[in-house]
Every structure is written in C-alpha cells, then in structure tokens.
C-alpha cells in the first residue's frame, strides 16, 4: 500500500523529468520535499517509497535525507519557528528573542509544545542579516524583531489555530 497520494507520486515522476535523461537521481531532493509536504515527515516507509519511485537504493535516499537539515525525519508541531542566533542576529539580540520564545512557549529549542502547535528551533544564518534579529515560521520571514513583535506573532498564530 503506497503511503503517498497519487498526486504526489505523479509530481515526483514529473520532477524526475526535469533533469536530463538518465539523471533521475537529481530528483531526490525535489522528491523528498514533495513527499514531506504530503506525509508531514520522512519516516522509513516514505523514504522507501521515494527510492522505489526514482529507482534508487533506499539506503542512498536515506543518506541524502539525513544529510540535509530541512528534511524532517520526525514529527513536529503545526508551526515550526526557526530563530536565527547566528552572528549578525546575535549582535542585535537574537538570543534574547530565543529566550523570550522559550519562556512564552514553555519549551526548549528542538522541542514541541504538548498541544502540538509549535516546534521551536535555533537556526544558523537565515539570510536576513541586515534586518536582524529574524525568525521564520514555516519558512516565511519575520524581521527586525522585538519581544513585543514576537508576542503579537504568537498571538496571531494561536488565533489562526482557534479559527481553523
């Protein structure tokens, strides 16, 4: 029984077609993104299915998935909050932003709130250094942060959950 939807399987085949003939191995990263969007995270079953679709060794697909940080190997919260503490953000209070979020959410970096709403992570440079300090929620930027702005953002995300 496939774990991925037919639409995802079709998109993975289509992604493989973007690369020159015989180079379908190049599609492993796009395929992992597609599989992750569908399944939430990349468990061994999902990895096996991606390998099968691209005709690659399962051990190779697993090695690629573990090399890159953006491939989620374990379940996570509904919103992933990635806080940059790298040097430019550090200089302008990135660690204060992280500490504030730890207090507000009651979790440490790498953890998920018990209600499954938020996963908090500490990140390396996110490419928004001139707008430091910054964070991303689901890879959308929030810049020039203050603790007040962070609180407003969390309130908004909580509200979104209540509506949905």
């Amino acid at each position, binding site marked *: 029984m496939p774990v991925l939807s037919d639409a995802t399987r079709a998109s993975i085949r289509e992604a493989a077609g973007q690369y020159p003939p015989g180079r379908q191995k190049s599609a492993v990263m796009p395929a992992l993104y597609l599989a992750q969007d569908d399944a939430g995270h990349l468990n061994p079953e999902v990895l096996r299915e991606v390998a099968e679709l691209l005709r690659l060794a399962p051990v190779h697909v697993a090695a690629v998935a573990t090399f890159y940080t*953006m491939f989620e190997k374990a379940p996570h919260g509904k919103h992933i909050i*990635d806080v940059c503490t*790298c040097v430019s953000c550090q200089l302008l209070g990135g660690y204060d932003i992280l500490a504030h979020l730890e207090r507000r959410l009651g979790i440490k970096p790498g953890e998920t709130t018990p209600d499954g709403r938020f996963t908090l992570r500490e990140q390396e440079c996110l490419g928004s250094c*001139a707008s430091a300090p910054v964070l991303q929620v689901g*890879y959308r930027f929030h810049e020039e942060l203050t603790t007040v702005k962070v609180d407003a953002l969390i309130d908004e995300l909580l509200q979104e959950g209540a509506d949905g």
Partner: protein
Amino acid sequence: MAERKVLLERYDVPNIWELDVYRRHGGYATLDGLFAKSPTDWVEEVKASGLCGRGGAGFPTGVKWSFLAKGTGKPTYLVVNADESEPGTCHDRRLLERLPHQLIEGIINTCYAIDAHEAYVYIRGEYLEPYQRLVQAIREAEAAGLLGKTVAGQDFPLRIVVHRGAGAYICGEETALLSSQEGDKGQPRQKPPFPAVAGLYAAPTIVNNVQTISTIPHIVRHGAAWFAGINLAPESKSPGPRILSVSGHVQRPGIYEVETGTPFEELLYGLCGGIRGGHDLKSVIPGGSSMPMLPKDVILQTDTSFESIRKAGSQPGSGAVIVMDETTDIPTVVWRISRFYAHESCGKCTPCREGNPWSVKLLRRFVDGTARAEDLRILVEVAEAMEKNSFCPLGIAAAWATQGALKHFRHEFEARISHASAIAAGD
C-alpha cells in the same frame, strides 16, 4: 556619496518582479543586440570589463568562461549559485525576490556567450519566497517566448530549472553544490578537474553567483569600458558596482551598492549613518563570517576594492560587512561563528570535522571565563591544523575567524584566562 545603483537601480519600482513592469523599465533590452555578436565576442567583452565573481572567491568571470572545455561532445551547463548562506550575507535573496527577471536576463546573456542551452539555479531551501518569485518569473518569461525552444525568436533554445537546496551551508561551495544537484550528499570534490572541464554530470559547467550573473546584462548593454570605469581605486583590478550587506551595529543596516574603492569610512559613517546609539566602532568583518575581522583603525584606512581589503589582511568574500561596536565581546562572537562552522562541517575530512567542535568547546571557556592558560595555546594549534589540513575552504575559513580575532584582540582572550586563574587561586 559613492552609492552607485546599477543592479539595484530598479529595486524600489513597485512590482518590478513582474515581466511587464520589468520590461517597461528597460528589461530584456539586451536581447536586441545580443545575437548580433558572436558568443566569443561576449566572452571577450566580459573579460575586458574586469568583472570578478561576487560569490566569494572573486575569480575574473570572463576568464572562467574562457576555460570551458570545447569539443567534449557533452552539453555545456550554467549553474547559478543562489545558495547564499554565508553569515552576514543577504543581498542575493533581495535580487531574487525583487529582480528575478534581471537574473533571467543575465542567464540568457550568459548562456548565449558560453553556448549553454540548459541552466540550473541552485537556491537555498530556506528561501521559499524568493524561490516562488523566481519560478513565477521563469513561467512568465516562457509564456512570453523569452525562454523555451527559441529565445526572443532566435534559433537558440534555453531552459531554466530551479533546484532547491535543503539546509546545508557547504552546498554553496561549487563542487559540493554540483554533487548535491546530482542527488548525492553535498560534499566537496577534489579539484582539478574544475567544473569548467568536468562539472555537472561530468560535463563542462560554469558556476556563477546570482549577483555576478545579474551584472552581465549591464555589461552587455553599456560595454566593458563603461564597467571598467566604475572604480574609485585606480590600482584596483576589481572594478564595477558591488552590493554589500551591512549588518550589526550601524544606524542603518541594509544592502548598499557601491562603486569599487569606496572607503569603508564613507560606507559606515555616511551611507549607514554611523555606529548605533553614539557608540564607538570596534571591529568589522568585511567579507562574511569566513573572513578575518579587522580592528577599527585598520578598517577605517581600507576601501571596498578587493585589493585594499586583501592588503588590510582580510578578504572581500561574499561582501557581507558585519559591524561591531565597542560593547561587543569578541570571544563571544568568535564562539558563535565557530559554532556555525561546527554545525555546517560536512564531515568529509578530520581536521574540520573534529577541529571545529573542539574550537567551540575551547572558545566557550573564554566566554565563560573558565579558560586555562594552555587553552589559548591549544586554540591556536587547532586553528593552525584546520587551516593547513582541511580538504576545502570551509575548514580554512573556520580557522581564519579564530586567527583574525586572536591577531587583533588577543588581550580579550588573555583577560579571560587571568580571571579564571584568579578565581582558581582563590582571590
């Protein structure tokens, strides 16, 4: 004021990322004259312009293009490096978000010059919004006949594929990038062969940075002589406008496009409004976290030309200018930079894989004031071992961060030792 807006000239035009807006502002005008000259003529033109790559190594772009292997029976590829992950660097993202068509125009120009019909853009995974903008712009260009089986009605097919990275700094290094795009772990390869001989899928490949390629349409349009003339430092061989990301303790952080040779004093105190809150400048990293930091008195005697930065003992690198005021604790900054390299080491070679976590541990003691006298000696030795024996520039860069700090701010590290010793001695 030496701000010189060329690539950023249209930056603030509303909706400039849309094809019709970009066209109304002179976009794709280079396609009128491009095909009238031969590809080799354009390689020579770019050589004559003196353009040096903006991605980090600063290699002359036209010279790189002329190294492409000929007659291999394989296609030639262009790979645009949009992996921008060097701490402090954030201008490629803005070029992708706001001016994706300028990049596409540059890709068309470049592919014609190097005779490539397939181009890839390797974009860092965290850049979701820039990725979406770029893909949208490519779709628009295809629909308008600027890409596809013919480019602007010419017998020249061109396809652009965007490939997303997934969170690995090392994939910015060109050979690791190619491995990553081929579907392997992103680890660097031995050079030679250089990508121009055997790159993507073992075919001749040019890897250029986003800003480098976005510069090409301006050279095609205005000519090599015009570009070479944008240079305030007569002795500099790295002319042209260059975009710098200025972050840290200035009043107005941001991205600034300046003429080569603009003094750092003018950049920091003029364009960026000086140091925040009336503080004094302490140190500047002129080229991203991989490059050695320079103290105030040195940086204020330096200008933005590649030559001046190198003479001062650092490197132009990615063009990320990280500014620290007098309140900054240097050991804490170096500890954080080391943590970055420890996290991003790809694990292929021992000096970098083992040396970086060790440096982090030692540096933490200086941050905490628990360092022992021999820790400083070990820190120096570890950095030396990484600098000498690392397989790729990542390990070397990690060493430079520590070495630069120790060269100019050794006293701050020593102060942490005596403090620890004093506590140990019980007074």
